[in-house]
């Protein structure tokens, strides 16, 4: 049986009817057409579904929509500025950190969370903060470079 849930999504209040054990990821993608978070592993290993929930990175494939009722959710889309990429998203593009692109929305959210808490992270701190996001294309060097560049413009 579906229930009504409301929460803040990328700054907007939304209400959505869904089965209570749908994952937040399913609701975002299937009910609200917010498709930047991806389901790759579905079990907490890859980080492609990373979103901010009340200011913290979480895996939206491991959060029930019931648990997100009333929360504040931000996806990669939520960091855009007037329809354009923000400085983190630009740094990823400009540093060749995006190849197939599938994992990137998760990396963007983890990077935004890192830089908001730690504006000038060391390489070790970047690696720790992004350890839960897997990328099978880039080998990470360009991603780390992009985060460093983004932190310079922070």
């Amino acid at each position, binding site marked *: 049986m579906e229930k009504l849930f409301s929460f803040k999504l990328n700054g907007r209040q939304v209400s959505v009817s869904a089965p209570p*054990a*749908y994952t937040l990821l399913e609701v975002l993608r299937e009910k609200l057409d917010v498709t930047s978070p991806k389901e790759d592993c579905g079990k*907490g290993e890859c980080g492609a579904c990373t979103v901010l929930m009340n200011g913290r990175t979480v895996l939206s494939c*491991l959060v*029930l929509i019931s*648990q997100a009722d009333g929360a504040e959710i931000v996806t990669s889309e939520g960091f855009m500025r007037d329809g354009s990429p923000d400085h983190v998203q630009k740094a990823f593009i400009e540093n060749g950190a995006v190849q197939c692109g599938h994992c990137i929305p998760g990396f963007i959210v*983890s990077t935004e969370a890192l830089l908001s808490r730690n504006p000038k992270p060391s390489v070790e701190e970047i690696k*720790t903060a992004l*350890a*839960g996001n897997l990328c099978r294309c880039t080998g990470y060097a360009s991603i780390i470079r992009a985060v460093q560049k983004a932190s310079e413009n922070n």
Partner: protein
Amino acid sequence: MKLNEIEVVSAKTLNDALSVLHDQSDEIKPIAGGTDAIIQAKEASLQTKRFLDISSLPELRYIRREGSVIRIGALSTYSDIIESSMLNSSCRMLVEASRTIGSLQIQNRATIGGNLGNASPAGDTIPPLYALDANVKVQNHEHSRLVPVEKFFLGYRKIDLMPDELITEISFEAVEDPYDGTFLKLGLRERHFISLVSLAISVKWAPDGDRFSNVRVALGAVAPVALRARKCEEYLKNRTLAEEMIWNAGKIASGESSPISDLRAPANYRRAVIPSLLYQAAQSLIADRQRRQKP
């Protein structure tokens, strides 16, 4: 039942949660951070008609000190533990263990109560809690009881918890200088990994600083439940610390383990690395002690 078909009851208060459990404990499973339970429900290893969502009960999310006792609400996340300045200064090994669990996304969501309730042999907060002689508080709608953590784990994924009870608090005596401790774990990569073997050691230094006057050693992922290596502890206690002696202690601890072979490592490998972990842990405690002694 598929994950999507499970009903969810959202508790707003602890009393609310306990009375729901009292009324329908056979058909409902508590869920907190969900980082294990949701995966298990997806994979159908957890079967339930209903989840009781307790993830947003504010009453069970706290870390505080009362006199010499540290109390951690069961819904405290690993991030809460890692960021607690009180725990960083008085219980380093629990912070170290929390930092090695999963990724940041997992640490932001997963709870210490969930780690106990899930009862994986590789649960990483469990060896530190053994080495701290912690107590687990469980409650139903009428009573609460305190269970020593070693008695809480009954066997492989079996815990001393009735269907109408919730884990509500973990408590232990604060670890003071000259008490100290550390946590180490070995896995197949540097970050975001499951323990092949983990070790927590809590010590009290003798005043002359060349031996431990008290020591507790706990091992994880090498038996159906975590275990205290009591023969190893006896051997270490009040014996002057020296290279060979520490290696001997490690061998004794290894003999107290009963690991299995699985996809991550064969049993003999797990047994073989226990002395190395104990050696590293002892050396880091010795180095810390020397650092502290410098004027």
